[in-house]
């Protein structure tokens, strides 16, 4: 992928750049808002990672001006602030995702991967499938090996997010944001508890486990390799 980084803090920018390059992505890096807009409009990128606080033009303004000129470039905003309002403001301006600093690289990676897949999702999908596990998004039913599985609404939602990102890591924070609508980290094992319930229902009775835990990061659903 070709990725644009707009970040004025050099260590952070280099940290992201190095990480992405190691994964084989092509990275351009600029350190101010004006260059950010120019690069984003003149070159073709698959994704942009933009800091919220920048000299000159701030992140939210960049997003607004890009969206204003019709650019559909997937954008992840980075910020040191985590207030609910900041998040909402960022997303309302047209950013696709919002990540609070400091973050683990795996968190950024998971979000980049999830975003990169998004365009293909624009086509209406009514069913998701991983191996013999199927999710009917219209009837909200789950089946594995022809057997109907009863899931609670929140379990279904988690499974849906995981299956939409088949083979990729979905972090705990991503799940908390998308399923629970929590923008804070709970002090108890809310996610873990639900995942273990989910596992008992979709994996335990069957031979091959599909739901995998990625240590310190999150979860992923795929056929074991």
């Amino acid at each position, binding site marked *: 992928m070709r990725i644009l980084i707009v970040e004025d803090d050099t260590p952070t920018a280099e940290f992201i750049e190095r990480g992405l390059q190691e994964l084989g992505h092509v990275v351009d890096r600029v350190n101010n808002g004006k260059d950010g807009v120019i690069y984003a409009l003149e070159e073709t990128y698959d994704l942009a990672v933009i800091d919220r606080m920048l000299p000159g033009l701030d992140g939210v303004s960049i997003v607004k001006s890009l969206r204003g000129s019709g650019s559909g470039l997937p954008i992840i905003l980075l910020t040191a602030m985590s207030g609910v309002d900041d998040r909402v403001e960022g997303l309302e301006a047209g950013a696709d995702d919002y990540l609070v600093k400091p973050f683990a690289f795996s968190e950024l990676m998971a979000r980049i991967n999830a975003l990169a897949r998004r365009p293909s999702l624009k086509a209406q999908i009514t069913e998701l499938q991983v191996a013999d596990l199927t999710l009917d998004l219209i009837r909200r039913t789950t089946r594995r090996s022809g057997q109907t599985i009863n899931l609670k609404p929140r379990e279904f939602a988690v499974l849906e997010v995981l299956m939409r990102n088949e083979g990729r890591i979905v972090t705990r924070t991503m799940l908390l944001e998308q399923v*629970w609508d929590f923008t804070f980290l709970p*002090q108890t094992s809310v996610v873990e508890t639900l995942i273990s319930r989910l596992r008992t229902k979709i994996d335990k009775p069957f031979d091959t486990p599909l739901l995998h835990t990625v240590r310190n990061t999150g979860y992923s659903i795929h056929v074991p390799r």
Partner: protein
Amino acid sequence: MFLDRLYRSTAVKLAAVFFGFFLFLFLIATSATYLLVSHELTKTVDDRIRAEYRIIAAQLDPEASDDFVQNVQNLADLRDPQLGILLLTNKAGDRLAGNVEPFQVEEGGSTHALPQIKRGDDYAYRLYSRPVGDMQLIVGQSLEDSHELLEITLVNLAWTAGLAICLAILGAILLSRKVQQRLRPVAETMDLVADGNLTARIPRQNPNDDLDRLSGTINDALDRLKLLVDGMRQVTTDIAHDLKTPLNRLSIIIEDASREQDNNEAVSGKLEAARLECENINQTFEALLRIAQIEASAHNNAHFATIDVASLIETVADIYSDVAIDAGMTLSVQPTSESVSIKGDERLLMQMLVNLVENAIRHCPEDTAITIDTHRKRGKPIISVADNGPGIPASERKNVLRRLYRLEQSRTTSGNGLGLALVKAVADFHDAEIQLMDSDPDNRERPGLTIEITFPSKADQQ
């Protein structure tokens, strides 16, 4: 200096305004009085000369007009022309009888200046001229007396006005002096506060007058300011203190790692420990910032919506019931038939409830029963979270709401003492009251903890 202060004094400005108003009214009243008196005086004179005319005219016997002329002449001789005029003329205007030389005058009542008759400087006469038979009778009276009366009235009015003005100015000065005397302690106190002395308070004087009530309000604001500043100092110290521990640990871990690195040992374990330590510090900051943000946006209810409390509670119970079960506890919602709704920020209220439920799960032993409940008391919506765990002693209930404060018994459980501080911030944000109490006061071993959040009633919210 004094004049300058006087000029700027609110009391003087007020006095000036009232004074102007008073003067205006006074002028109107004076003019009215003057016009009225002068009109009354003229009317009295007119009445008199008309009556005289009628009396004289009644004496005319057409058969003996010479007698009549003689009579009039007799009357005229008795009269000083300086005070009154009597004149009888024929149609041609020649004098038949009278005490003055004939002069031209129109029919009926009129006012004339007759300098040819009158000495002194007020020549005005009030005249009444009417025919008597084929003659013309003119009766007149000097207006000097009436004018004198008017003058006396005017002078009187002027004196009264002068006196009133003097009194008003004196009153304004005294009043402003007095007000300044009362305001000086306020100004002095505020100067002290501006210099950083937050303990200065305005001395109270006459209880219950408006200025004293204002002083009371200012003192209350100062109390609150002091509380906030003290709180801020406390928090700063607490944060510094609280962060020193993990930073110390971090520094030790890194030092360890670099020593192991020198010995060519694997350091990935140490690095992971360092990362976790950083994450913990970061979370503390995150929570502190969040609380600060909620406090800073107090009274900004842009995100307020009408929230169905029952469904909010159901959601929380739904999310946490499995977590509670895994911890060996039960989490249930007190059934209610009442529909309770409040105006509020749903995300914040959600986090508030989550913090309360998570506290119960983390600070209570196995087999604890947690209950979430909502109802109305005297019209006020209440949300409460209750458990039958160890509870919080009454003496600590104020403290646990503070940032970074944790009970001794919780040192071993993870957490940073910010959960209840956030609950308090969210409650304040919604003008709600927060109350901590025993769930079962009779149970010494496990009194449990009930936290009740009382929201303002609908009527109070408007």
